[in-house]
C-alpha cells in the first residue's frame, strides 16, 4: 500500500504512517525561506538576550560602583539573592510593588479604561472627542513631565490642597501621609488612556449583529456585556493586561519624582529599591539581583494572563 495514496474510507491509517506528501518540505528550502529572519534573530540575540544574560551573570557577582569589587568583581553564586531574601526591606518592597500593580494597573487603568471605552461607544461625538482628548493628554505627556505635574498636584502647597482650602477643608500632606495612594492615582491618571484606546478598538470590532441577537434573546445590558462582549474582546483584555502590567512594573520616574520612594521606605517599589542599592549604595550586583526578581515577577504575570485568558486559536 502506497503511503501517499488516500486511505480507503473507513480503514484507519496505520499508526506512525507518514503524512501526505504535499505537507513535506525539503529542509533546504525551509532554511532558505527563514534566511531573511536571520538579521532579526541576531539583533534580538545581541540586544535582548545579551543584556538578559549579562544581567543574570551580574546578579551572581559582588560587582560595585567603587572599592575593590569594582575593579575585580567576584563570582559569589546566589549570595546576593540570599541576602536579598534576608533583607527586611525586600518583602515590603515586593508587597508595595504588587499593591501598586494591582491597584493602579489591573484595577485602575484596566477597569477605568474599559469603562470609558464602553461609555464612549454610546455617547455623542462631541462628548467622545472631549473625553478622549482629556484622557489622552495625560498619556501623551512625557513621563517626567507627568511626574512633575502629579507632584505639583499632590504636594503640600499644591493644587489639591489649594482647592481643598478654598472649600474650607483642611488639606493633609498627601505625599507624606498617603504616598502609595498618590502614586497609584497618578499612575491611573497617566496610564488609563492606553487601556481606553485598546478597548475602544476592540469594541469596534465586535459585530453589532451578535449583541443585537443577544438582545433579542432577552439578555439585559450588563448580561450582554459580561456574556457576549467580554468573551469576544478577551484577547484584547489579555494583551492589555500584559502590557499595562509590564509598563507599571517598570514605573520609576513617577515614584522617584513624587516621593523618592519615601517617606522612609513607604513607597519603595522594586525599581526604586534596585536603583537605591545599585546607584545610591553602589551595590551593582545586589541591585541587579533585585532587577532580576522584577523580571521574574513580570514573567510570572505574563504566564498567568496567558493561562487564565487563553486566547482562542485562530
Amino acid at each position, binding site marked *: 500500500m502506497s503511503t501517499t495514496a488516500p486511505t480507503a474510507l473507513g480503514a484507519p491509517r496505520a499508526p506512525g504512517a507518514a503524512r501526505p506528501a504535499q505537507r513535506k518540505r525539503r529542509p533546504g528550502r525551509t532554511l532558505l525561506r527563514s534566511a531573511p529572519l536571520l538579521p532579526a534573530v541576531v539583533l534580538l540575540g545581541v540586544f535582548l538576550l545579551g543584556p538578559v544574560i549579562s544581567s543574570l551573570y551580574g546578579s551572581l557577582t559582588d560587582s560595585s560602583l567603587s572599592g575593590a569589587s569594582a575593579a575585580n568583581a567576584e563570582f559569589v553564586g546566589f549570595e546576593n539573592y540570599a541576602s536579598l531574601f534576608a533583607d527586611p526591606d525586600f518583602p515590603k518592597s515586593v508587597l508595595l510593588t504588587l499593591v501598586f500593580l494591582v491597584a493602579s494597573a489591573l484595577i485602575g487603568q484596566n477597569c477605568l479604561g474599559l469603562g470609558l471605552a464602553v461609555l464612549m461607544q454610546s455617547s455623542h461625538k462631541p462628548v467622545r472627542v472631549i473625553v478622549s482628548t482629556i484622557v489622552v493628554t495625560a498619556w501623551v505627556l512625557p513621563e517626567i513631565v507627568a511626574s512633575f505635574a502629579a507632584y505639583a498636584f499632590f504636594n503640600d502647597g499644591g493644587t489639591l490642597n489649594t482647592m481643598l482650602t478654598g472649600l474650607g477643608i483642611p488639606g493633609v500632606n498627601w505625599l*507624606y501621609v498617603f504616598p502609595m495612594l498618590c502614586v497609584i492615582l497618578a499612575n491611573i491618571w497617566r496610564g488609563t488612556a492606553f487601556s481606553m484606546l485598546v478597548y475602544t478598538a476592540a469594541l469596534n470590532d465586535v459585530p453589532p449583529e451578535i449583541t443585537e441577537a443577544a438582545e433579542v434573546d432577552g439578555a439585559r445590558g450588563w448580561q450582554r456585556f459580561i456574556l457576549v462582549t467580554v468573551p469576544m474582546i478577551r484577547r484584547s483584555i489579555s494583551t492589555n493586561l500584559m502590557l499595562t502590567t509590564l509598563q507599571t512594573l517598570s514605573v520609576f520616574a513617577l515614584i522617584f519624582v513624587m516621593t523618592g520612594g519615601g517617606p522612609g521606605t513607604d513607597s519603595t517599589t522594586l525599581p526604586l529599591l534596585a536603583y537605591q542599592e545599585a546607584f545610591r549604595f553602589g551595590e551593582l550586583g545586589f541591585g541587579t539581583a533585585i532587577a532580576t526578581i522584577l523580571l521574574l515577577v513580570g514573567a510570572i504575570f505574563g504566564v498567568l494572563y496567558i493561562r487564565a485568558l487563553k486566547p482562542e486559536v485562530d
Partner: protein
Amino acid sequence: MKQRHLGVAAIAAASVLLFSGCSAGGDGGDANTIKVAYQKFGQFTQMDDHMKKVKDEFEASHEGMTVELVPIEAQEADYFAKLALMNRSAATAPDVMYEDTFMVKTDVEAGYLAPLDDYIADWEDWDQFPENARQAGAGDDGKIYGIPMGTDTRAIWYNKNLLADAGIETPWVPETWDDILDAAETIKASSPDTIPFNIYSGKGQSEGASMQGFQMLLSGTDDVLFDSDEQKWVLGSQGFEDSLGFIEDIYQGGLGPTPQQALDKNIGTTINSEWIPGGELAMSLDGSWASGTWIETGSSPWPEWSDVMEVAPMPTQDGSDPGRTSMSGGWTLAMGSGSKNPDAAWDFISTALSKDNSLSYDVAASQVAVRTDVAEDPEYTDANPTFGFFSELVADTHFRPANSDYSKVSAEITVAMESVMTGQQTPEEAAATYDQAVIGIVGEENTMAASD
C-alpha cells in the same frame, strides 16, 4: 501560535524595561584633550567658575591642548554614582576629577585613581600642605592620590535677631545638646512660624546627613563609629542610639522642618538661599561654606548676612571635654588612572591648586584653607568674618573613618536616620537594623561591641 507570540512579547517588553539604560560610550578622546569632571549643583557654582578660569589659564600656557570640562549636575550621592559610572568605562573616564576625601580610599581600591607621588616629588608647592592635609588624599597603600583644595568644619549658624526675639541672649553658646533643644523649644513657643533648628537627615541628603548631621552628634558622645586601633566597626553603642534619639527629638518633636521638607533632595539649597535669608530658620547645623552662598560672588548674595548670622560651635552631648566638636572633610583634585596624557593632567591639577588659584577658590567657596601660605594671606583672612572661627575649630575636629567600607556604612546611617525621623522605627530599633546592615557589609569579624 498566539500563545507563543504573547510569551515572546512579554519577555521582550520585560527585558526592554530593565535594560533600556544601556548605552554605548563614545570614543575615548586623545592625548591632546584632557577631560575634567566636577560637581555643579544648586548653589555650588564656585567650582564651575574656578574650572573655567583654570581652563583658560591652562590652554594659554599649553598650546594645542584642549580642556574638556564635564560639570556633573547632580546632588552629592548622585554625583558619586555618575562619577563612578564615568570611571568604569575607558571611553568616559576623566583625566582629572573632583573627588571627596572620603571616596579616595575606596576609589583607589576600585582602580580609578593614579598615584601622584612622582609628580609631587618635583612640586615645590607641596611644602605648603601640612601633614594632616596631605593624608586627606592618601590611599590605603600610603601613596597620595588626591591634592586637597580646602577643608571644612561644621558648626551651628544662627540668626541673632530670631534668637533675640525669642528672648535668648546672644552671643549664644550652647553647652550641651539639651541647650539646643531648649532654645529650639523657646523659639517654637514664641514664634510658631519659624523653623527652630535644622539638622540634615535621611537618605536624600546622603553623606551630608551622615556626616553633617549624625556624626556631628556622635562625635560629641563617648562613642565612635569605627575603632581605628582595632580597625573594627563599633556596634550597639549608647552614643549611636542617643544620636538617633536627638534626631527623633528634633523631627518627631516638631523642632525642625517637617520630615517631608527635610527629605526633599534640594533642602540644602532651599535653606541657604531662601529660609535663612528670609528669616524663616533660626538655627542651622551646617558647614563653614554656607556663607559662600551669601557673599557677593555667591549664588544668592545677601549683603546683611554678616550682621544677622552668627556662629556657635556644636557642643558635646553633656558638655564634657573639650566642650565642642566638629567634623572635617574636604575635596581633592585627583587624576584618573586611565589618563592618556598624565603629564598634562598633572599640570592642570597643579595650576588649579597654585597659590593664587587656591586663594581665589577658597574665598569664593568659603573653604577652610589648607595651604599654609593661603591661610596666612591677609586677602584670605579679611575676606570673610567667619573664616577665623571655622579655622579654629580644626583643633577639635574629627575625621570620618579611614576605611574603604566607610561609604557603604555611611549610607546605612542615613537609612537609620530616616526611619527614626519619619517615626517608622524607634532609635533602638533603627540602631539594631543598622548593626545588622553593617555586619552584612563588613562581616562579623570586622565589628566589635561598644565597651559600655
